[in-house]
Each structure stands twice: as structure tokens, then as C-alpha cells.
């Protein structure tokens, strides 16, 4: 812990208090490059709040969040994205009125300024990237479909695809399989396992079967602090985790 620049993400002594309620309380959390981490924990443990803090949606009361050695807590949301942090929300956040293609294109990290957007031209690189990502998230057939017409699971995939367009170093997925069918869950687990070698990924999830399918290292949050951390077996056999979360 001597130098937190070795980590991709180093969250230290992080506290956020909402009217005295500490949703995150003195949290320390580290992640390596290309690591896939699953964060679990009971409702109200602070899982979503942690992601909110990292992506800048919520500002911390105390503590620091360093991403590749750069302090994120001082940056506005869009600059944190520029640093390489992508966030998927719990309910699919996509643009219903735009087609799948346009959803992906809007997320492409060029033409991000007003004038850049006005002058932006679609080119071959964008077309290729769009196709590549669309097939990764299993939407290659649906490029011209209006996103509002997609199934719930496809919307979740589309949002993951939108993040991938940004080519982020860190992907943060908040309950990516919520509302998915069994088959879709399986496909999503495969998708995440494929992505794991290329990006660092934080996944928040409740479904323990799903966690087993993707989980390498698991962090258990409880009342705003880390209760346990380690591989699936260690965490599952941890007395305190069984008490507060998994049940007997």
C-alpha cells in the first residue's frame, strides 16, 4: 500500500455522509489493471454509492479516489469519463429515440466538444468500431433498430456496448443482469468473461449463481465498509459474510 500508483484504482479512506448517514464509511478499495471484481452485499451496503463516487455522480465527504495515480474526486463527471472510467447504470440508460447504431456512435469518444460534434463526420474507423462492438454485445443484427424497441436484456447489452465504444480502462456495471432471462444471463456471463482480459471491470450483483460464473475476486460490502474480500470460496465460507448476507 506504499504507493497507490501501482493500482489502476485506489480508493482510500473514502467516506460519504448523507445528512449524517454514512453510506460509505472509511472505505479502502484497490483494483489492478485487467481485473474483474464482483462487489456483493446486502441492500443499503453502499454498492451503488461506491460506483456513484468513483464516476463523480456523488462527491465524497472525505477520502481520495485515485485512478492511474490521478485524483478523480476533483474532476467533473465528463472528465472522469475522459480518464477512462465507464459507468453502466442499474436501470438501462440508453437513448430510446435513437437507433442502436446511433446510440453506439454517440458514445464514441470523438467529437466530444460542441464544435467537434458539429463538425464530426462518420468515417470508416467509426463504422468498423460500431460493428465490432455491436457483435461483441450480440446486437449486430439490430443496428438499425430503435433502441426503445429492444428487449430489456438487449438494452442492458446495448448500454455495455456504449461503454465499450469509449474503450474505458475501467468498466463499472451496476447489476447488469437485472431483468434478464436465464439464457441472457448465461450469454452475459460469457460476455463479461471475454471482456475481463481487456478491461478492468467492477460488477455489482445479487445473483450468487451469476457471481460464481464470473467471480474471481469478490468484495463484500456491509454498512459502507468492506466486510470481506477474496476469492469466491474464501468469501462464501467467511462467518461474518454468512451472517449478514448469504444466510445459513
Amino acid at each position, binding site marked *: 500500500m506504499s504507493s497507490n500508483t501501482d493500482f489502476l484504482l485506489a480508493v482510500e479512506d473514502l467516506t460519504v455522509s448523507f445528512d449524517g448517514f454514512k453510506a460509505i464509511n472509511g472505505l479502502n478499495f484497490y483494483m489492478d489493471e485487467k481485473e474483474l471484481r464482483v462487489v456483493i452485499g446486502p441492500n443499503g451496503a453502499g454498492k451503488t454509492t461506491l460506483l456513484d463516487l468513483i*464516476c463523480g*455522480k456523488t462527491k465524497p465527504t472525505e477520502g481520495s479516489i485515485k485512478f492511474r495515480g490521478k485524483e478523480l474526486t476533483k474532476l*467533473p*463527471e*465528463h472528465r472522469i*469519463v*475522459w480518464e477512462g472510467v*465507464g*459507468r453502466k*447504470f442499474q436501470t438501462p*440508460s*440508453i*437513448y*430510446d*429515440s*435513437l*437507433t442502436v*447504431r*446511433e446510440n453506439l*456512435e*454517440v*458514445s464514441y*469518444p470523438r*467529437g*466530444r*466538444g*460542441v464544435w467537434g*460534434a*458539429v*463538425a*464530426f463526420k462518420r468515417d470508416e474507423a467509426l463504422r468498423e468500431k460500431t460493428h465490432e462492438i455491436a457483435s461483441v454485445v450480440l446486437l449486430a443484427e439490430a*443496428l*438499425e433498430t*430503435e433502441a*426503445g424497441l429492444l428487449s430489456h436484456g438487449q438494452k442492458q447489452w446495448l*448500454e455495455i456496448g*456504449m461503454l465499450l465504444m*469509449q474503450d474505458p480502462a475501467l468498466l463499472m456495471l451496476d447489476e447488469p443482469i437485472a431483468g434478464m432471462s436465464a439464457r441472457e444471463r448465461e450469454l452475459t456471463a460469457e460476455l463479461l468473461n471475454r471482456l475481463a482480459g481487456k478491461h478492468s471491470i467492477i460488477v455489482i450483483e445479487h445473483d450468487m449463481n451469476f457471481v460464481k460464473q464470473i467471480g474471481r475476486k469478490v468484495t463484500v460490502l456491509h454498512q459502507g465498509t468492506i466486510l470481506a474480500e477474496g476469492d469466491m470460496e474464501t468469501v462464501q465460507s467467511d462467518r461474518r459474510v454468512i451472517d449478514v448476507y448469504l444466510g445459513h
Partner: protein
Amino acid sequence: MNAKLDFLDGRNGLVSLLVLAALILIVFPLAMGVDQLNLTGRFLSFSFVAVGLVLCWGYGGILSLGQGIFFGIGGYCMAMFLKLEASTPEATAIQTTPGIPDFMDWNRLTELPWFWVPFHSLTFTLLAILVLPAAFAYLMGIAMFKRRVSGVYFAIITQALVVILTILLVAQQGFTGGANGITDLRTLKGWSINTDEALVTLYFITAVLLLAVIVLGKWLLHTKFGRILIAMRDREDRVRFSGYDVANFKAFAFCIAATFSAIGGAMFTLQEGFMSPSLIGIIPSIEFVIFAAVGGRLSLIGAVYGALAIGFLRIAFAEAYPQLWLFLMGTVFIVVVLFLPMAWPGSTRNMRLGRAAC
């Protein structure tokens, strides 16, 4: 498939643009006398504001109830230039201080205020009409959007600013002509603007400028900027977390709408022959929104029909039942907003969802 659809949309768009162009450039001038054409020209100058609102409200979701501010900036800039031209020392020889606008003399000003001086220049005036509203909209926009003021709160603040502006204009009589506004405008670079011939010419200039503004708006909506505008309306947070500074994009849309409005204001002054606070206050500002809503909110071209329809309806109805007019217009607005929230029936599903109608 996409390319073909784009092309079809493009062709439909082209047809509706040509229909509008034929209507305002050929049909109206042939069918109408000068007075009626001049009246129509004034409705067309209101359309500029409505077209701007389609961009920033219909597509960007930014409802401004204060577009009168920008219509007024354009209108007043033009009026100031024309007034100075009309206030030659010879024409104002009977005043205590000849050479300044008459209302200044009545208010015992003995010297032209500094901010009036540059309006001797037509070039400066034209630049001011384009730049001032955008600059003001940018300041307003950044101040509010950076603080995440949006929706109803934004609308209320713009409304308040309109009230402040009109109160200011009325109170500073010596500088602005007060409640009467700036009247008695005669010539533009020596060219009389009150003759029949001039009114017809001004009508055509307005119509051509309006078409140009619509084409510019369509072009903007087809850029990535246009898609981000729609994206912001759908999911503002998603746009922010895709790496865009949402405030800048909103401010830009607001600036464009402001400049469009100001061009309309300037053309209005030229055709009406005066500019006054009553033309830019709360009621006109809300009417502009009604024009855009009646036109379908997502159609730049529809905004023009909205302005024309309400304009002609007012003429037809207000003469017969002046007291009922406001109630009727209010009803039209409520019906349109409640039952036709995005577009007229018969338009495509795409249009309802906010695409391709641009």
C-alpha cells in the same frame, strides 16, 4: 437499409421544404395584397423564434418562456439603427438638442448615450443582431446549466428575465423610448421602408432568411450535435457519463435559438416600422412556444405553419370576438400539448420518437 431510409427521409424533408418555399415565395405574394403580405411577413418573423424553439425545446428539451428577450434584442438593435438614421440634425431641428432621437430630447437627454453610438453603423448593427443574443444566451445558459438548473425552473427563470427586461425598457424611457418603444422609423441607408415596394421586398428577404435558417437548423440536427441534443433530452445523465459536458451543449442550442429569434426580431422591426416592449413581453414569449407546439414541436417547418396558423386565426377570430381570443388560444395550446405532445397525427412513428422529423 439505413442509407435508403436516410435518403427517403431526406427526400420527404426536401419536399416539405419546397412546399413551404413555394407557399411563402410564390403563393402568398401572388394571392395577397401588400397589407396582407406585410402582415404575413410579420408572422414569418415570429416563425424564426418558433424554429429556434423547435431546436432547443423540441429536440433539446430546454423550454424557454423567455424567447421575447432575444426577439427583442434583434428588434431593438435594428430599431436603434433606423432611429438614428431618422434623427438627422435637419429632421430634428425643432428639438432642444437636434440630432438625437426625439424621445431622448423629450426626456431631456442632451447627448446620445454611449451604447447608442455604434448603432450609427449598419455593419455593427447587423453583427450585434447576430452576436449579442448569442452572447447573452451563452451567459444565461452557462450560469444555469452549469448549476444543473433545468426543466420548469429554467422556464420560470427565463420568464422572470423577460419581465425584468420589459420593466427595464419601460423605466429607462430616455434610453429606450419607454413603453412606446422606438417609433417613427423611416429609412434604411436612405431606402424608405414604408413604401409598398419596400414592404414587398422586406417580405421576400424575411422569407428567404427564414428558409435559410430552417436549412441551417436541419443541417445541425443531422450532425452528431443533433443526435446528442436528442440524447440529452432522453437521458441527460447517460450523455454526461459518456464524456460530454452537457451544460455546453445545452448552452449552444440555446444560443442558436437566441440568434434565430433575433433575426426574426430585426425583420419584424423593419416590417412593422417600430419596436416596443409590448412586443417582447411575457405574452409574446409564451405565444412563441405555442407556435412551436402547434407546429408539432419536432418539426422546424411545422413551426412556421404554427406561427402562420395562429396568426391568421387571430386575425379572423379576434376581429369578431376580441374577448374570446385569448381563451381560444389557451385552449388550442392545452389541447396541442396534452393530446399531441410531439407531432401531428399522420406523421411517421419516427417523427413521434423524435427522429427524421428534422
